[in-house]
């Protein structure tokens, strides 16, 4: 059994392998990397670096994509927004 570390993904605690990269995590989550943005400890990552960036205990990862929206739907959007969810 490989050693695991605790990280935070989209605001939720999650365990992952100690030697995992961002790319590994995305594959584990079955997230296609096209049209996805990844922020690691507030640093926006280049897509080509996903496989080169290893994860460390306590890392905070945000994985974002596009959803329907053209106009904000009032205050509840603000509550849902990841910036405010913390």
């Amino acid at each position, binding site marked *: 059994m490989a050693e695991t570390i605790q990280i935070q993904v989209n605001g939720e605690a999650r365990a992952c392998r100690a030697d995992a990269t961002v790319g590994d995590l995305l594959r584990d989550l079955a997230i296609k990397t096209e*049209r996805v943005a990844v922020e690691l400890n507030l640093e926006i990552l280049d*897509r080509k670096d996903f496989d080169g960036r290893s994860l460390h205990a306590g890392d905070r990862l945000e994985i974002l994509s596009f959803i329907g929206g053209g106009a904000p739907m009032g205050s509840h959007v603000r509550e849902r927004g990841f910036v405010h969810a913390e």
Partner: protein
Amino acid sequence: MQNDPLIIAGREFTSRLWVGTGKYKDFAETKKAIEASGADVVTVAVRRVNITDRSKENLLDYLDPKKYIILPNTAGCYNVEDALRYARLARAAGVSDLIKLEVLGDERTLFPDTAGLIEAARILVKEGFIVLPYTNDDPIVAQKLVDVGCPAVMPLAAPIGSGLGIRNPYNLKIIMEMIKVPIIVDAGVGTASDAAFAMELGADAVLMNTAIAGAKDPIAMAEAMKYGVYAGRLAYKAGRIPRKLYATASSPIEGML
């Protein structure tokens, strides 16, 4: 009206109706409404991916990126820092350098924080973004947005989602006369005549979401909006007659008995 493209920052847009993708019943309805609207620009928001339920479909699976220009927005951002963060994430997600910039000032009205908007626009333009700012119907602010490098300005007709229509046609008209870049009226239209009115005033395009998505029949309303924008554009180019207080007969007097 063939050959009447809208050009912003060297990009050519064929439709003068741009649509948002929020508030629809499901993605199938979103897709049908967008098709009926004839829009080639669709706005999308940037949000966390649902990592617990991966079965959820993605909106972009329904929208062919070859067919539509995806315009990410910073909807829901109430300060400069958040707006910059979302804009950069949107670009990192890999669609384009286009961003519909929103920096909101108040949750009840969703009016823009125009000071924050100008500041955020200045920074993003320097970073190479094509910034399309959602702003108030204030000609001075519109000019400042152009001064910091915005290649188009998007003043509101009325509060987002209100359906009140063009509340201040005179300010919008001043913006259209003063500002030398394309003007896209964004937010507040309720029905097709509002869209036509915006175009008759001289708007280069109209962007809407709720007026279509919130209609009883969104797909029919999308089509109505297409014709509203089209009719308004034609009327603007045709040049309307001046308003007069008294009648002018259309039929000649000569030849009457």
